[in-house]
């Protein structure tokens, strides 16, 4: 029999201090019954003697110390799952959103999960074609990777994520991704954008939606990504599916964590975020990957908006330290109307090296990649120089770099929301753009590939004739 306590002594922010308790466990799930009979959920953050500190997911508005009662449920927060979760919608705490979202659970799983044993992991190395050149060619995504999008407010991160979800395919395989879409504090409109896109593409029947919207309780967001990842792990490692998880917006998650930390009066780390933000984020982002002997996989695309477009802000910074690369969007490219406005220089896919090359994409991929980066970086430098000195002051070679950087942004990076480019097309486009350089300048490409590919593109170059 679970005991009920009416011994809340203090309410501060999202936290309750409860006294006179017995047998309460750390991280235990708590049920809070308000005077009006409504029920809220909480989690034990600390037990100290007969006292406990409880974080209330739905917030503490309306809770008073006299009549509110508290029950400790003896277990952590669980998500109830069965294969029927596909096509269903859940709240940020993993409860069915409406009657039609109810399922007959097959099992219940603690949403915190457990760390995957590094020894049990299999290295992600299967190329995912997203149809977006600046991703496939330069920041290649592989199945089982965690690759976030670092965006800014007003930038089209949602469109890019939706385009990836729509177009993502593994070459030569028919399997389609199941999608776990996790909305963390985003607006109704934004979430509706994704849902209608899933409906149009038919992905909706293979999707699980976990929704905590802007007007839903903020503290609940601490649980929301974990609910989503619990579903993803179930689908991937028990039902053998390839799962694409979209988490948006992780900035709202971090804000919720900060709020709790502030209410606990913890010594803040950088810019007011808790010192354990890195560790906490890792327990979310590391829930991606492949496992030896299992066919399923979890590919994570977290989205976050960088406060003030600042990459060194703790949220993007710590995320970048955990995830396997990052796709960074640029406001200036967006203003130039490039779509998608991906800033390729600071973007990175750490897992690309094992996902590209012969038998995966094409033998010349890695060299083309290196050359495009080197040339574009130099081209950007030259462009800056030209701003100061004028284009006329550039050397002949620098003029080519200048032109290259322009072409690269307009043709390679920019492609529009509905163009789905094959990897062949992306790689060929790279050759075409590089062909404006004299061969000697292409130092990062092996001779054999220059021999094999360059002539095909050189003759098309009008400047040559």
């Amino acid at each position, binding site marked *: 029999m679970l005991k009920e306590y009416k011994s809340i002594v203090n309410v501060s922010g999202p936290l309750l201090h409860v006294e006179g308790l017995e047998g*309460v*466990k*750390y*991280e*235990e799930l708590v049920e809070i019954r308000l005077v009006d009979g409504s029920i809220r959920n909480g989690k034990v*953050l*600390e*037990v*100290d*003697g007969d006292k406990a500190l409880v974080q209330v997911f739905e917030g503490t508005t309306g809770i008073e110390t006299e009549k509110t009662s508290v029950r400790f449920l003896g*277990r*952590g927060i669980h998500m109830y799952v069965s294969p029927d979760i596909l096509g269903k919608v859940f709240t940020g705490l993993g409860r069915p959103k409406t009657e039609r979202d109810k399922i007959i659970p097959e099992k219940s799983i603690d949403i915190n999960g*457990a*760390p*995957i*044993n*590094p*020894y*049990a992991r*299999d*290295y992600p190395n299967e190329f995912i074609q997203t149809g977006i050149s600046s991703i496939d060619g330069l920041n290649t995504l592989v199945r089982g990777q965690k690759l976030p999008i670092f965006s800014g407010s007003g930038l089209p991160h949602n469109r890019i994520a939706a385009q990836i979800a729509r177009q993502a395919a593994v070459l030569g395989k028919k399997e389609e991704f199941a999608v776990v879409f996790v909305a963390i504090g985003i607006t109704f409109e934004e979430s509706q954008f994704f849902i209608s896109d899933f409906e149009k593409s038919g992905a909706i029947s293979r999707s699980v939606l976990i929704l905590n919207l802007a007007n839903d309780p903020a503290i609940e967001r601490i649980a929301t990504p974990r609910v989503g990842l619990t579903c993803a792990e179930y689908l991937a490692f028990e039902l053998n599916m390839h799962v694409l998880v979209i988490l948006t917006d992780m900035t709202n998650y971090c804000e919720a964590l900060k709020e709790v930390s502030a209410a606990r009066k*913890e*010594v803040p*780390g*950088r810019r007011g975020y808790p*010192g*354990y933000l*890195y*560790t906490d984020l*890792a327990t979310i982002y*590391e829930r991606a990957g492949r496992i*030896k002997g*299992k066919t399923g996989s979890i590919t994570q695309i977290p989205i976050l908006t960088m406060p003030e477009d600042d*990459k*060194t*802000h703790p949220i993007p*910074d710590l995320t*970048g*330290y*955990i995830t*396997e*690369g990052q796709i960074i969007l640029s406001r200036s490219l967006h203003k130039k109307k490039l779509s998608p406005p991906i800033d390729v*220089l*600071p973007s*990175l896919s*750490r897992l690309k090296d094992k996902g590209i090359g012969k038998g995966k994409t094409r033998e010349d991929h*890695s060299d083309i990649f*290196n050359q495009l980066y*080197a040339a574009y*970086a130099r081209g950007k430098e030259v462009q800056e*120089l030209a701003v*100061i*000195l004028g284009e006329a*002051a550039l*050397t002949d070679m*620098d003029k080519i770099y200048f032109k290259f950087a322009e072409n690269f942004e307009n043709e390679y990076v920019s492609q529009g929301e509905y163009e789905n480019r094959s990897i062949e097309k992306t790689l060929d486009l790279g050759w075409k753009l590089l062909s404006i350089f004299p061969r*000697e300048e292409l*130092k990062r490409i*092996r*001779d054999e590939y220059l021999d094999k590919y360059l002539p095909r593109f050189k003759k098309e170059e009008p400047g040559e004739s």
Partner: protein
Amino acid sequence: MSKLGKIIKVAGPLVVAENMTGSKMFDIVSVSEKKLMGEIIGFSGDAASIQVYEETGGIGVGEPVYPTGVPLTVELGPGIIESIYDGIQRPLNKIYDKAGDYITRGVQVEALDTEKKWKFEPIAKKGDNVSEGDFLGFVQETPIIKHYIMVPFGTAGEIKSIEDGEFTIKDTVACIKTKNGDVDVKMVQKWPVREQRPYTEKISPDMPLFTGQRVIDMFFPLARGGTACVPGPFGSGKTVIQHQLAKWVDAEVIVYIGCGERGNEMTDVLLEFPELVDPKSGIPLMKRTVMIANTSNMPVAAREASVYTGITIAEYFRDMGYSVALLADSTSRWAEAMREISGRLEEMPGEEGYPAYLGAKIASFYERSGVVKCLSGENDRVGALSVIGAVSPPGGDLSDPVVQATLRVVKVFWSLEANLAYSRHFPAISWLNSYSLYIDNISDYVKKNVKDDYFDLQTEAMRILEKESELEEIVRLVGMDALSAEDRLILLTARMIREDFLHQNAFHEVDTYSPVEKQYKMMDLIIYFYNQARDYIKLGADIKLIETMKVRNRIARMKYIKNTEIEKIDTIKEEINTEISSLIEE
């Protein structure tokens, strides 16, 4: 046995238990019936603060704490090489066998295989007088590692008996008659991780530790037994450098600590190392490697312990006279683990919330490196432990307390720059900001054993690079036309040094490892080109002709010349001469 403690508080990885008199600081305890492993890190009256190495969810007030009376130790003996451990020396493969894909709590596994039989070959004989550190015998643990069995610390006397044959680590292989009675020696010994292993004497490093990475060996070299740090923002190449060193560094034993970093990076090493072979011995790299993996999502207290577990294992092999390299990626995560625990203990925070003792902990960690005369009564065995730590400062900002505390103690600084990484110039080690304080120590050795003018070439190359950065300022103000032909040659040569020498692709089958002989030839060639071209310019030649010389293409590709064919680099010199003379004729 002391009495049971009782939990009075649980806050994340920190548990407080009362009734703990009888236990000591840093004793290991077992928390609750789930038997979670923890370590005492503070006392207040009879209440002990305990950092718990496993998740504490579900633990509550009133549950028992079982004292063990011993500190956190590692088990040292045959079977360590090729292992992958978590931060408290639990083999991850055995956890996997027991618990499956996820690391569940309370899994108890032996650090070393206690059933496997090893062939023990004696070195000492019956009747020999031996003291601590002396070799009793060895086990050929892998084709390249002789695992010496040493007389345990604090033991000395006459060998009463010594075996020869197949034994497990629990069997007695020798018996030593000491002042205090007979001591049975087994092949395994324990050592408390927070205590450095003793040696006779420290010696200052005087040999280089080559890594096959050009920017390191030529510009900012390591010394055997030295220390280095690699700070840089995310994506700047810290982990790749650590992996490259683990693969190619000229050491005999590698200890790789993945401290609070990505799971897949450890998997990468696990899958790749058995395939890659050591260029010297031709044996798979795994046969000289020990891995500690306490990834970012694994418990934070065990992450704190992981660096100590790693360095103790490294010291143990150093004591056998090996040159050991320890790579820690990333020490910042270790520091953050300290910060987190310190915060829960409500200690007075210092800079950025780090505990005030951060600097002291970092210094004493790196101080466990060095070249030492090993503890042993009979010979001059010398071992070396080199320590290379990655540092991950927030936002790449080098004023970070962990970076600053590290720079105060290490002798080599490889500064990674985001801008180099963005243009995919790897390794993104800044040639202007990095330094090595070992050049004086090792220059005699290098002159004698590699090339007399090795460091002269380096000095000349460095001068050109520094000059380049000055000239770039001028170009930015007034344009390229303002430069003299000689200055433009400097820019051209600097670019060659950067692109054709410093840039090194870790994922290219040849370029990934560059032996020093090849590095020397490459640098020598670029400087040769520079000198020839400069003479030619002095004759009034047009710089544009030099900029478009065909031989530059061959120079650009010399890094891809196979390590077995490096003489081919010499032939490029002739081509330089021929091309310049043909230019002169024109």
